[in-house]
């Protein structure tokens, strides 16, 4: 699946492995969870009040559009949370955003 974001500045940090809907993907140290997901996917979550998806909006922890669910039950605001190794993100199939 094509990602929405594209990298303009090369990241030299350590590789970070995590999963999106079970698929193993790679991020780099210094990536926020939002960046890490949107480099691989067009959206972050399903919208709970309609048939659509959401990909965040403000990137500054204000709009709360970017909360994502992890398989371990944690909910995280993706634009203010650094990605960590082993995170298992659920993008599709979480209607409660």
């Amino acid at each position, binding site marked *: 699946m094509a990602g929405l974001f*594209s990298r303009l500045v090369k990241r030299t940090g350590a590789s970070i492995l995590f999963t999106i809907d079970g698929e193993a993907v790679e991020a780099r140290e210094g990536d926020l969870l939002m960046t890490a997901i949107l480099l691989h996917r067009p959206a972050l979550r399903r919208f709970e009040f309609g048939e659509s998806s959401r990909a965040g909006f403000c990137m500054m922890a204000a709009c709360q559009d970017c909360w994502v669910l992890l398989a371990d039950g944690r909910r995280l605001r993706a634009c203010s949370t650094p990605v960590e190794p082993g995170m298992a993100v659920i993008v599709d199939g979480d209607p409660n955003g």
Partner: protein
Amino acid sequence: MADPLVVIVGAGPAGVRAAETLALAGLQPILIDEAERPGGQIYRQPPAGAVRPGIYGLEIRKAAGIHGVLAGLGAVDYRPRTLVWNVFQDRLDLLTIEGHGEQRFDRLILATGAMDRALPFPGWTLPGVFTLGGAQIALKSQGVSIGRRVALVGAGPLLPLVAHQYVGAGAQVVAVLDVTPFAPKLLQLLGLAAEPGTLAKGLWYTARNRMQGLAAAYGVRAIRAEGKRQVEALIYKDAMGVEHRIACDAIGASCGLRSETQLADLAGCAFVFDQVGRQWVPQRTGQGRSSVPAVYLAGDGAGIGGADAAELQGRRTALAVLEDLGRPVDLAEAARLDRRLARQARFRKALENAYPFPDHLLDDVADEEMVCRCEGITAGALREAARDKDAAEINRLKAFTRIGMGRCQGRVCGHAAAELLARASGVGIEGVGRLRGQPPVKPIPVLGGVP
């Protein structure tokens, strides 16, 4: 007697300069910010461990100045990753990675900054639509572009700036659309000259953008994002009324800035209506005093003035705190800051006039359009409540429709809702009142720390 406890919320240009001024005067202020590193919105840094993308337009020196201040000041008790979610009397409620906490204060400086003023348009909830500020943060904090083909839409100085920064970083910018007309910008040139440096910068961006084949279109109307599951195109009408369709996968769009005022509200500060920003803001004197004796206001959180004004206000407000604490104050410095702030205010007024509020966007919002991104409340629902339930005041509208009660607490929808209500009820925008702030000002997880 122990030193008075001064707490500053916000480590942007305003808060950092306030902390610096207090520390140099011998106090040990506490500086709290929910972000991981200092700099605020304009000088947002990448997370620790990441290479700095090095994209600040022309502001690299200023950014480095703000980032470096705290390192040189042992006296500031800097607490990053700490959300202030409530103010009650002389106490702040905090949330950190470790959990909940409290902080008492003798004096409180609120330097909470601003965010983009978002206005709804068809398709604005599609994945791929971000604010202009969000598009900029993606670049400066993460070194990424919000899409492969990016369209930028707006009404304010962030538009040419972000366009310039995106092109400079190698992104493909397919359109720069200004929803305000060009003529007022020429008219305001004289006032803009009150800050020669800044004016030169604005012109420089515009010239650079043109040289790179990126001429902005002005007076653009009827913007609309289309796409099945994500943004596929941006459609708009040019100033002559001709429709254009531009293929793109991401859009950065917003219309100026709005102040982050919730904490001032909870602190009990009186508010005044800012005609230029069309927003209720906490009342402050030129020296940064609010209506509450122990509470002070600095930076864009109490009216938009931009980054340079925020630094000056941070310093000036700290001097007011020192004065009120009976500490010696450099009066010549205070007078110098007052003069520079007056110049900044003239520049700001001219800038706002150069970008008049784009009324047409709100007149065009269709009933089925979502105004509330959090819960999907539509413009039609708001208009119906205004008409049938006689909800001519914004908090009444909130009670009937839940507008402003979602996760963002009205940060995103509040402005548009007030404008729509003003139109539907025939009361002026000032007359509909303001959404009252409620703790927690941001969602706090029941378990665990700051997300």
